[in-house]
């Protein structure tokens, strides 16, 4: 009798997890169908490329962000890191006249350093990374403003244009980078022991420590990776905008977080997939793009995005509570 119940409840639980896995995809397909009906310009290859390129920057950063999130942390400073690295990269190329070939690696190193600092502070001060990165976000952004001296930095070498504006075949470079990052991220998370450690850290930090994982090292490394990836985003964004402005990249963490949560990455850690994340990113892209096509004002787009986020996370929590109740019921029995 006992075995039978295990398999029965398994089926129920399995159906629940399957639902959760595919719910974002179903939402994405539903939205796509809906908008292609009301706007004939929506589902054209040209528009799709525009749409994806629009979100590709946030998507790249988001890969780094979910590494941190699956491990149970959070990085709210991504956008501010980009503000700072953007200005530094601009000044390196324009004011110091350094070739992009050298300036870009320097920017990536700076990004990684900013990330490492987040990680270092969160383990040394032993404060949740939500608060740490809220603080460093303000610091990084402020530093960016200071370096920028309220200038609009222009006059980059033309060779720098390719990263954000170029194409490989018909595909814009940022989209290619996004796909590569997603594939690497997914491979790391699902196939490597490092990926397992990330899930372990978010699933049960103390158990991970007692199983021999160097959790402090892991945390620093994950924030460093997140910062490095945001460095990549920063380079692409600067090349796309082609002017060093403090507005570039601001608030990008909101899209990263929304996409992650839409895609089923748990806020508490231990759960999440790149596939879900990318679905979440595309949902944001579709909403942005369709509302622009339908010429919604900017602020009403914010309202819709916020509502979609709450609805999907609400659904997620509802599912989890139901599952928890089932587990309790089973254990009690």
């Amino acid at each position, binding site marked *: 009798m006992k075995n039978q119940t295990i398999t029965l409840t398994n089926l129920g639980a399995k159906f629940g997890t399957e639902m959760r896995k595919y719910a974002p995809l179903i939402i994405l397909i539903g939205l796509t169908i809906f908008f292609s009906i009301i706007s004939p310009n929506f589902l054209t290859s040209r528009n799709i490329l525009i749409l994806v390129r629009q979100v590709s920057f946030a998507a790249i950063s988001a890969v780094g962000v979910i590494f941190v999130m699956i491990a149970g942390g959070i990085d709210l400073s991504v956008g501010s890191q980009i503000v700072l690295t953007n200005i530094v990269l601009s000044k390196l190329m324009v004011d110091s006249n350094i070739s992009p070939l050298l300036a870009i690696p320097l920017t990536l190193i700076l990004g990684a350093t900013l990330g490492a600092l987040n990680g270092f502070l969160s383990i040394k001060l032993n404060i949740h990374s939500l608060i740490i990165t809220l603080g460093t976000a303000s610091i990084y952004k402020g530093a960016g403003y200071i370096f920028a001296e309220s200038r609009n930095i222009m006059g980059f070498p033309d060779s720098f244009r390719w990263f954000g504006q170029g194409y490989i075949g018909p595909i814009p470079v940022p989209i290619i980078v996004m796909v590569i990052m997603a594939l690497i991220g997914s491979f790391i998370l699902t196939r490597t022991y490092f990926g397992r450690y990330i*899930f372990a850290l978010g699933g049960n930090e103390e158990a991970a420590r007692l199983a021999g994982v160097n959790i402090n090292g892991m945390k620093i490394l994950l924030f460093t990776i997140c910062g490095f990836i945001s460095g990549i985003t920063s380079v692409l964004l600067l090349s796309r905008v082609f002017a060093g402005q403090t507005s570039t990249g601001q608030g990008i963490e909101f899209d990263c977080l929304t996409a992650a949560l839409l895609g089923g990455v748990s806020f508490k850690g231990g759960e999440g997939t790149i596939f879900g994340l990318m679905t979440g990113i595309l949902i944001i892209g579709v909403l942005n793009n369709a509302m622009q096509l339908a010429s919604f004002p900017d602020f009403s787009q914010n309202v819709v995005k916020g509502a979609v986020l709450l609805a999907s996370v609400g659904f997620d929590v509802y599912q989890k509570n139901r599952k928890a109740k089932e587990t309790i019921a089973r254990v009690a029995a």
Partner: protein
Amino acid sequence: MNENVVLSLKDITKKYPGVLALDRISLDFLEGEVHALLGENGAGKSTLIKAVAGAINLDGGIIHVGGQNHHQMTPHLSRSMGIEVIYQEFNLVPTMSIAENIFLGNRVSDKFLVDYETMKSKTREIFKLFNVDIDPMTLVQDLSPAKQQIVEIAKSVSKNVRILIMDEPSAPLSVSEVEHMFEIINQLKQKGVTVIYISHRLEEVFRISDRVSVMRDGQYVATKLTRDTNRKELISLMVGRELKESYPPQSNPPGEIVLEVKNLSGNGNKDISFSIRKGEILGISGLVGAGRTELAMLLFGAAPIESGEIWVNGKPVQIHSPLNAIQHGVGLLTEDRKGKGLFLEMAVGWNISFPILRKLSKYGIVSAKAENKIAEHYRQRINIKTPSLEQRVINLSGGNQQKVVLARSLAAESGILIFDEPTRGIDVGAKQEIYHLMRELADNGNTILMISSDMEELLGMSDRIIVLCEGKLAGEVQKEQFSQDYILDLASGTH
């Protein structure tokens, strides 16, 4: 004790999807009796409590209490009938004082502002009854688990409890604290309170209860007068078959010294020295707070060593982290399986292979084949009952969860295994399996340190016992000298 029935259950039935959790349970509880409820994990004890407390909806049956029949209970109704439950997880607000906790949601007077004076004096009154002396304004978070439990009991007394249900109340307590709890229970009994006592520990049932009822697989099995029954009978009623509770003996003489601890200090322990031989099971005894788990953490590198040395296989080793310990062949099976041992949301196979992932990886990529092979090997080796390796650990029973933890240490090829409370919260049948596994491991050349609060288990399983008291080594006891009294003397520092 008299024959007044205060609570009568008739044909109580509760269904969960695919399982009959309670199958027409009928049971009477008498005024002023201590009624023990026994059963293996999954027998339905917790569900029955929830039914009485009104925490779940019934699918059938009648609860007769306070002169009325009820087809459904609600938490409020249950309370108003004087039924109080003390669950394993205490229901206290840690940041509030004892008095505030006791009268939480209960106004003690008609004054507009909180009447601390009345609360304090009423709390003292109850404490006096229990013969305890704690300042009512102490914050609950500053209390030991034993004192917190007293606060829980005091809380129910303040609500004029008539039927007190205690779920595994002795689990967080040391031996002397359990004695004190028994005194309190006797006090309540004299006041005519009915105590329903749920415990895995049979000796406690014999110590405290008047009658004992046994449940199995959601069904009522029998009720016995405690003085008319015995251990063997109760166990066979619980498991539904004759089960010898036995401790497998040592078959080989112990080999060379494998682990030697020299003047080790740190994590609250001071100047601890002992050694242990290959194939030996060394019991570690002590009261709660004596530093047993702390010592385990120290040996495992999970807490910093202040001074002293650890020698493994005749060589001094540096253990600064759990990783170091694992590399030197030390494995820890923590007392807190769910909190510190397992990744509950992850699959069985995932959990087993976790500490050896690096070994199973090439260029950082985990070989799924190698992983499955090793997980499957240990699943069969120690008979983990799970539908598949993909099953999430949270869905397994306590005994099988413990086996997953064990499988993990075995997969890591740890020759020195530290078992911290290996059978806590595990039912009788699974306990036997764990005992046999431990002995088999020792016979196969592993070395085992076993921390246990269960005196019987400690005496039965150990080849030698060391006793800790307040972070210091209080003594070492050879098999010939094993006696509960002697060990308790050492543990309480009276020797």
